[in-house]
């Protein structure tokens, strides 16, 4: 059951010198409902650009993006977006942040229980009235996640939500995401630099190359759940992906 289709998408931007950059070139893929897609590629390969097109924040110069057959023309609550640099509103408490989308969409009589449920699920209990700067980076990212999830989007776009976290907190948030994905079966697309993360979460992995940003390969993840980061299967698949990224041998 295909949900999102991305067809022949090109994105052309102009750099400071006014020169054309083909940020994305000839991007084609489909995402089925309930999938978890990991997109991996080096910095600057156009991952954020691609997510922005899917969310509707930007429009491609060429090609077409559709959700359930309808073209994407503008941002919509049905497509949640968790930004690369946690963009919780610093002037709202954790709880206010999480309910802000609901309030915007449903007015004052939004489902307050739902908010409490996700505060619980994300382990944010006790921090409802804290402001973003008062909680740790991991908590802030869980809250940003909750803020999008609580709107029950059909598609959730995650732009390196764990990029700024340390390895330990990162594992924690990864587990939270996986739990939410399993419980709600929301389609998710995750952008990341971290191979472990891509493998640990994704059902399929899109490997991208930079300049111009293209899809090198789409790999289906053979691992079953629950996944163990230290298992031999995991490490084997990790090496496969590493090879595809030409990444591994280190001394130069």
């Amino acid at each position, binding site marked *: 059951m295909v949900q999102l289709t991305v067809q022949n998408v090109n994105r052309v931007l102009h750099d400071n010198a006014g020169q054309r950059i083909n940020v994305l070139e000839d991007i084609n893929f489909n995402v089925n409902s309930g999938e978890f897609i990991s997109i991996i590629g080096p910095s600057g390969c156009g991952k954020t650009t691609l997510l922005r097109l899917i969310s509707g924040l930007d429009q491609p110069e060429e090609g077409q993006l559709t959700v359930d057959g309808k073209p994407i023309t503008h941002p919509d609550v049905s497509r949640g*977006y968790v930004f690369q640099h946690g963009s919780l509103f*610093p002037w709202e408490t954790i709880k206010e942040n999480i309910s802000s989308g609901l309030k915007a969409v449903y007015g004052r009589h939004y489902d307050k229980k739902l908010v409490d449920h996700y505060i619980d699920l994300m382990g944010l209990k006790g921090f409802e009235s804290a402001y973003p700067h008062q909680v740790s980076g991991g908590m802030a990212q869980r809250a940003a996640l909750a803020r999008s999830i609580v709107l029950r989007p059909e598609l959730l776009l995650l732009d390196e939500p764990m990029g700024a976290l340390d390895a330990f907190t990162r594992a924690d948030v990864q587990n939270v995401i996986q739990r939410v994905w399993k419980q709600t079966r929301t389609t998710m697309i995750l952008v990341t630099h971290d191979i472990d993360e891509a493998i640990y979460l994704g059902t399929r992995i899109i490997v991208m190359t930079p300049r111009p940003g293209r899809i090198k390969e789409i790999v289906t993840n053979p691992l079953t759940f629950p996944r163990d980061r230290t298992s031999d299967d995991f490490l084997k698949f990790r090496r496969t992906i590493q090879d595809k990224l030409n990444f591994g041998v280190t001394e130069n």
Partner: protein
Amino acid sequence: MLETVTLSKKQRIKAVKQDKAETKYWKPWRTTWNILSLVALMAAYAENQFVPAQELVNNGAYKWFLIAYFIYLVVVYAVGSVIHGRIRVYSGHFAQLNTILGLLLVVQDLITEKFAIIKLPFFVSFAQILDQIKTDQKLLIASTWSSLGLWLISFVIGTLIGVILGLFMGRYRQFNYWSFPFLKVIGIIPAAAWMPLTMVIFPTSYLAEIFLIAFAVWFPVAFMTIGGVQSISTDYFESAKTLGFSEFQILRKVVIPGALPNIFIGIFTAMGLSFTMLVISEMIGAKVGLGWYINWAKGVGNYTQVYAAIVIMAVLFSVIFSFLNKLQEYALRWRKRSN
């Protein structure tokens, strides 16, 4: 990994308060300084009592002031030495300053009314100012209320206009394109030049006064608000969009809070200006008021009255300032405190 120690909410809030008080009032409690500051005040009293004055002054009000000051210090020091709370932190921090203030009171009294090293009419002792306030108290109270009312209404109007204009100009670049050049020109016209025009344009002189003060307020507020809106990260606008915010909701939930820190800078800047304009604007049509009082006293060069009005204005200013500070602290409680 969720085992972060969770302090109870009440505990956390108390802790933050205490901490804030301690970094702001950092001088430690020292009994020596407490005693010294009391001694300095006693010295000020004794000096005023026993050194003969060269100028004719009624020192009654001044003495009561010194006694009240002394009692206040005794009380806070007594409380501070028993209870380890905010009062201790606060009074401990200011003990040194109080000592110096006591000594300064001695010095100013000696060089003015006692030895007349610097003389009337331009230099008066604090005792003379206090006595003047006591003498004119009825007029001054009426003036203070009148000025406060005028100031308040004008300041609120000026701030509102400034904020609204600033928000629109910061958010909508078409609006900015069409209004900024005109506002810039209007903004740099000195108030003195406005006075006749406002008198002609506004039906009553009270409205003209309000306009003059509000005018001094809105410009810095609008200016800062524009900068505030433009400094909001686009991330917030984009997340608002993906969360289904309408334009109105974006204004209310993103633009306004995001610009608030700058708006407060604008408001604080406008404070000083508005007080200056208060004095000027009360020259048209006021029957009473602190600005009027200053102008009236200047009619015969009674500087003691001028200083009396200024002391009251300074107190008023401080009170309003600390109120606005509290307001800012509350409104921007979401900000990380630096240090």
